[in-house]
């Protein structure tokens, strides 16, 4: 379950994470209006996906583990969407 990833791949993933960190800081200094948060969260999700797939070995994990991992994200999505449909549409 954990034997498949080489040191070189781990280093490349880490390099990609540092690059994305630099990108998110750089983008924060550009005025994109309400798109700043969209860009910042897109980069954060990309970083999280890299960590989950490579560092947490979800790439090599079985179907059941993948379903459970996605379930956490799915319920979070339910909470965000249902709450914001209220708060963003008041008045």
């Amino acid at each position, binding site marked *: *379950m*954990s*034997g498949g*990833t080489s*040191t070189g791949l*781990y*280093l490349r*993933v*880490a390099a990609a*994470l*540092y690059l994305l*960190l630099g990108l*998110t*800081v750089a983008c*924060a*200094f*550009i*005025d994109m209006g309400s798109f*700043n948060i969209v860009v*910042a*969260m897109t*980069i*954060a999700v990309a*970083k*999280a996906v890299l*960590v*989950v797939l*490579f*560092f*947490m*070995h979800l790439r090599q*994990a*079985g179907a*059941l*583990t993948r379903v*459970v*991992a996605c*379930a*956490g*994200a799915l*319920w*979070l999505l339910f*909470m*965000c969407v249902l*709450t*914001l449909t209220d*708060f*963003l549409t008041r008045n």
Partner: protein
Amino acid sequence: MSDDRALVAHQFETAAQQRSAATLGMWVFLATEVLFFGGMLMAYTVYRVMDAGAFALASHAQNILLGGINTAVLLTSSLTMALAVQASAAGRRRRSVLMLLLTMALGAAFLAIKAVEYGQKFAEHLVPGVDFRFAGPGAGAAQIYFILYFLLTGFHALHLTIGIGVLAVLTARAARGRYTQAYHTPVEVTGLYWHFVDIVWIFLYPLIYLIQVYR
């Protein structure tokens, strides 16, 4: 082979089944952790939507550089943690211990930088409570920002502290050669937890530090 059998608890058929059960258990726990931090982030989102200007102003009291360095420190700790799991799985004891120690050191460095930041908040009267002082409009919303800041980063730091404690136990056991190619599940499962704590910070950094910094 007799060594392998001894490490498999009686309710499991094989070592592989035991390992996948342990991994699945950690993922289930992490799903509850997603919602634990998710609830606080939801509160953050709602209050930020209600007064975006005040949140931006309040966030400008944060030190982007220290937060950025801490993000890099935590990302690096995830790399060393992944390498520790890899070394344990390969049965390389010395490398495994070294990587676990590095991971702990990076975790401690993160907490040290966080402590400096907390100290600055106290000095600048930005800790919510009777001594909270914030110039300009939206002081109420700014105080909510700092309540959420301490809540989110505090719980994150608590998780990291627990992680360092677990790693200390793992390091001691790894040094005594407890983890082999056949049995290294505790390192693997602790790695999952450590990476999750890293992911939480990946979201906290832009949400807390990087609000309208161009202003």
